[in-house]
């Protein structure tokens, strides 16, 4: 446990030594803030038009969960931005170690391979959590000006966390396959895009194929979380992806020993 922490601490600090952390943070904060603002604007317009219609017909508008709608769309957007940013968090995890030869230090230190994998994963996860924490600003605004239902928001965060960790685990595995971090990032992004597009292909497919394809769609499983529904099947989907990524990374390290 201590070893995992020592490794995670070093990797986490490395993010902030290179420009990567600042670039990713800046882009994320800017884009998430921009779209939060956009969703607010949409809401304000809708409220205005409904108020007008109410004045004309004399009927009160249907009750509508405005903060809930904003939160849901905002989280959806966050999950979409993450498709582009998460590969940048994982791209260097192992590829840089391989390129610099420091992997030899890690694999001959008195620590297990699993500790190495978990240390790296924790570092990436910690940085992802930092990204999520910045959305606290938008949430604070939401809570300050309205009374949103906290359940769906907490479920949304849980969903985002699980989804992000799953993506990170896959990205970490891909970074063990190459010495070039750009290549790792591009392959990770391509893989995520494929998982994302599966959803689109699924729409045109037959019933049974559709069921399988949309089950594989990585973003599809997030929807219920964002609606405030905690369903075991989606939690299990993400947990199994996380475990799969960690397992593949572990096996990949082992094969690295044989090949090098």
């Amino acid at each position, binding site marked *: 446990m201590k070893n995992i922490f020592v490794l995670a601490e070093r990797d986490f600090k490395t993010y902030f030594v290179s420009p990567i952390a600042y670039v990713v943070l800046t882009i994320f904060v800017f884009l998430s803030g921009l779209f939060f603002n956009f969703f607010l604007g949409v809401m304000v317009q809708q409220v205005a038009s409904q108020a007008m219609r109410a004045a004309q017909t004399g009927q009160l508008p249907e009750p509508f969960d405005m903060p809930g709608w904003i939160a849901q769309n905002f989280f959806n957007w966050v999950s979409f931005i993450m498709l582009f940013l998460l590969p940048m968090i994982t791209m260097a995890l192992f590829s840089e170690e391989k390129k*610099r030869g420091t992997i030899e230090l890690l694999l001959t230190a008195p620590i297990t391979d699993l500790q190495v994998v978990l240390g790296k994963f924790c570092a990436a996860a910690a940085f992802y959590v930092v990204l999520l924490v910045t959305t606290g600003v938008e949430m604070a605004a939401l809570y300050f000006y309205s009374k949103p239902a906290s359940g769906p928001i907490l479920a949304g965060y849980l969903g985002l966390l699980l989804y992000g960790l799953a993506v990170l685990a896959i990205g970490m595995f891909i970074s063990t396959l190459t010495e070039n971090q750009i290549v790792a990032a591009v392959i990770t992004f391509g893989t995520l895009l494929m998982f994302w597009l599966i959803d689109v292909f699924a729409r045109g497919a037959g019933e049974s194929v559709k069921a399988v394809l949309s089950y594989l769609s990585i973003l599809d499983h997030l929807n219920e979380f964002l609606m405030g529904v905690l369903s075991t099947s989606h939690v299990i989907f993400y947990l199994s992806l996380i475990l799969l990524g960690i397992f593949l990374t572990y096996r990949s390290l082992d094969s690295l020993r044989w090949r090098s």
Partner: protein
Amino acid sequence: MISVENLTKRYATKTAIDGVSFQVEKGEILGFLGPNGAGKTTTMRIITGYMPASGGTIKVDGFDVADQPLEVRRRIGYLPENPPLYTEMKVLNYLQFVGKLKGVSSAGLRDEVHRVMEKVNITDVQTRIISKLSKGYKQRVGIAQALLNDPPVLILDEPTIGLDPKQIHEVRDLVKGLAGNHTVVLSTHILPEVEQTCHRVIIIDHGKIVAVDTPQNLRAQIQGAARIFVEVDGPPADVLSAVKALPGVANVQIATEDGTKNRFQIESETGRDIRTDLARTVVNRGWGLLELHSENMSLEDIFIKLTTAEEIPAPVESAS
């Protein structure tokens, strides 16, 4: 301290190490000598547990590398061929990180890091970022890293590569100072290094051990084996076959060609003086003997001789 038995490493297309066995006693400095690609680095990587062997058993301090890798790794300080440095870190932070990984207690970490920095003389650059250091300093940071937590076994892959002569001298003194309490295995392709620092030498080539001895014995063993130059006025092909047929001749080749007056380079078997027979043969065949002199072989020549099998069809020792 280290026992390697019948170590084999096979890749899909080639065998990198082929049945290597040797022992290293406690407190000994063992030198691995061989050309690039001989299997030095692979052997060291297997001992450190970086890489699994295809066959054979390796024990360090009684622990099997394959069965108890963590116990073995706790006892080994390893400097890979390329020092494994996180170049964006400061020297001090890097050594603290490695110290923590190696299980140095947090109470003793500061003292331990300072001890190794003193030892390799890098205390003055401790706050510098590693990427800004010269190659010599980087190499020393790599050595410092291996010394952390005072492991009883040190595996150093080309520890003096990239250093200037003064630093090479310092590192050799450092390694010599480690003997006694530490068991050191170092690899090199520089001969004087082996002669100056090692108690015993293993010469390795194409994944096989070619010779094992003390540097002094290796030299003595070859002292009798002379290299002889003769210049003969006669048909070169006939001379070659006549000389080759002489008892005690290991190898003959033409050194310089000049019409019928050719210089031949002859290597004799260990401990045999073939000069009398050689002169008699040449004269009896009616050729002109223009010059004949012998040279003793240096360790450098032995090294070249022992490791370039393709040029020497029937080498003395390498067949074994």
